[in-house]
């Protein structure tokens, strides 16, 4: 059986999205800046997509700047905004479980002289608001807390975090990559000034994302050129990609409520089934988690060998093990929840998606115990009774 369960790492483009995109590769190839019918056609398509993306989060189309993806949007939000606010101060507070792109942007800003503070999380990965409040001061320019964590699924209290930022006159940024299309988002209602959005996570193409910027915010552009995207992101627009993102956003808005309910049932059954394996533990919050995320750790074995073994039986997943990372460090997110490295190594993250069904979930629940047992039997550190 085939059971791809790593949608958070990479998702297919919805065929309905692809159908909308295709004419913009071939027939409607004009440059949106051109003053002729080819240009107008492309520009109209981009404007429509801007409206579709804005609509998904209840924003004004003018508040959406298209980028090459969530990483660039995170860069534009932090590296672009921070120098604009230098008069106010130089402190930036980010949560300890931000995506690695944001963590590395923060580190880079630290080298540029910014005072970076990391707000801790509890054992379920929920940001500690009282600690956040202690770290945010009047010299703080940006607070960044993700809407939901892509690895352990924990949903963050961003409205409360935003209120803390605003009490001190700081901007509030949220990376909504793992939350978009999974839970309702509305930056205006939630007090969000900057929101990172990604296309592939809602079955749009890779290589496209956006930054929501509350009206009036103008980051220093990272890419200088012909002044596209109101001067905030130059370069000829990726029209097919943007059209795809727009279509994906419209579909996500229409289908999210039913899909979230369906995925939540699959997720809960998957977690229940996996936790019947001896010495297994849930990572992340039991209920405050995105509908698609199940993350479980197994003692005495290592996640990369679990992933390779699952791949052999047709199931794809991710791990927070150092052994699957470029850095050779276990996931900073799991460590932030208080796990020891040896426990983080045995974690397995499943992110469910539109093509998953209960047959696949039951198949995985049947397959995994044997795999865990085989690897434990091979491990020199397993207690005898688990082999």
């Amino acid at each position: 059986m085939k059971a791809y369960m790593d949608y958070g790492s990479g998702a297919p483009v919805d065929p309905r999205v692809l159908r909308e995109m295709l004419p913009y590769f071939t027939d409607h190839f004009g440059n949106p800046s051109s003053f002729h019918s080819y240009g107008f056609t492309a520009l109209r398509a981009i404007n429509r997509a801007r409206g579709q993306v804005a609509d998904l989060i209840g924003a004004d189309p003018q508040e959406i700047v298209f980028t090459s993806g969530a990483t660039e949007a995170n860069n534009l939000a932090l590296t672009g905004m921070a120098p604009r606010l230098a008069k106010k101060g130089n402190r930036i507070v980010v949560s300890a479980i931000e995506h690695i792109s944001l963590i590395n942007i923060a580190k880079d800003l630290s080298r540029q002289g910014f005072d970076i503070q990391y707000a801790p999380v509890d054992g379920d990965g929920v940001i500690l608001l009282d600690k956040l409040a202690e770290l945010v001061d009047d010299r703080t320019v940006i607070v960044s807390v993700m809407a939901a964590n892509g690895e352990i699924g924990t949903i963050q209290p961003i409205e409360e975090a935003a209120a803390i930022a605003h009490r001190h006159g700081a901007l509030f940024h949220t990376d909504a990559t793992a939350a978009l299309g999974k839970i309702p988002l509305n930056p205006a209602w939630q007090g969000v000034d900057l929101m990172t959005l990604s296309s592939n996570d809602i079955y749009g193409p890779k290589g496209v994302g956006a930054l929501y910027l509350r009206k009036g915010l103008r980051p220093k552009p990272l890419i200088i050129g012909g002044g596209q995207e109101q001067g905030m992101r130059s370069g000829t627009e990726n029209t097919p990609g943007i059209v795809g993102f727009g279509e994906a956003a419209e579909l996500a808005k229409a289908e999210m409520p039913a899909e979230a309910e369906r995925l939540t049932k699959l997720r809960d059954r998957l977690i229940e089934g996996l936790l019947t394996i001896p010495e297994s533990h849930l990572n992340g919050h039991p209920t405050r988690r995105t509908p698609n995320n199940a993350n479980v750790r197994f003692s005495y074995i290592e996640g990369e060998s679990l992933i390779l073994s699952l791949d052999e039986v047709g199931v794809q997943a991710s791990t927070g093990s150092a052994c699957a990372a470029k850095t050779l460090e276990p996931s900073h997110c799991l460590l932030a929840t208080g796990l020891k490295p040896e426990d983080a190594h045995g974690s397995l993250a499943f992110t469910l998606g539109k093509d998953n069904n209960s047959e696949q979930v039951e198949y995985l629940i049947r397959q995994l115990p044997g795999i865990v047992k085989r690897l434990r039997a091979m491990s020199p550190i397993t207690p005898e009774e688990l082999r």
Partner: protein
Amino acid sequence: MYSEKVLEHFKNPRNVGEIKDADGVGTVGNPVCGDMMTMYIKVKDDRIADIKFKTYGCGAAIATSSMTTELAKGKTVDEALEITRQSVADALEGLPPVKMHCSNLAADALHEAIMDYKKRREAKR
């Protein structure tokens, strides 16, 4: 990404297990780093007559363990000492650069087991 050979050894590792009355045992790595392995050797007439391993770790850790046992079996202990991390990696048609040092510990475990065997032999004399 792994070579076909690494994946093949990961799927079908050779010589997994323990030798209860081993003549030498070597353990390297630790669970904090994510890789740990123990090698057991049985020596007859100065040759490695039997060898088994137990490994906690990633695909590369398991595949290098398996390959090392294959390379060592039947060799004299001194020949087996010439097996290096590099020769194990070469026999597996290469390892990702990041894995060369963290997970490629099996040759070290084998050397530890041989040293343990030599020490025990000295003690008997």
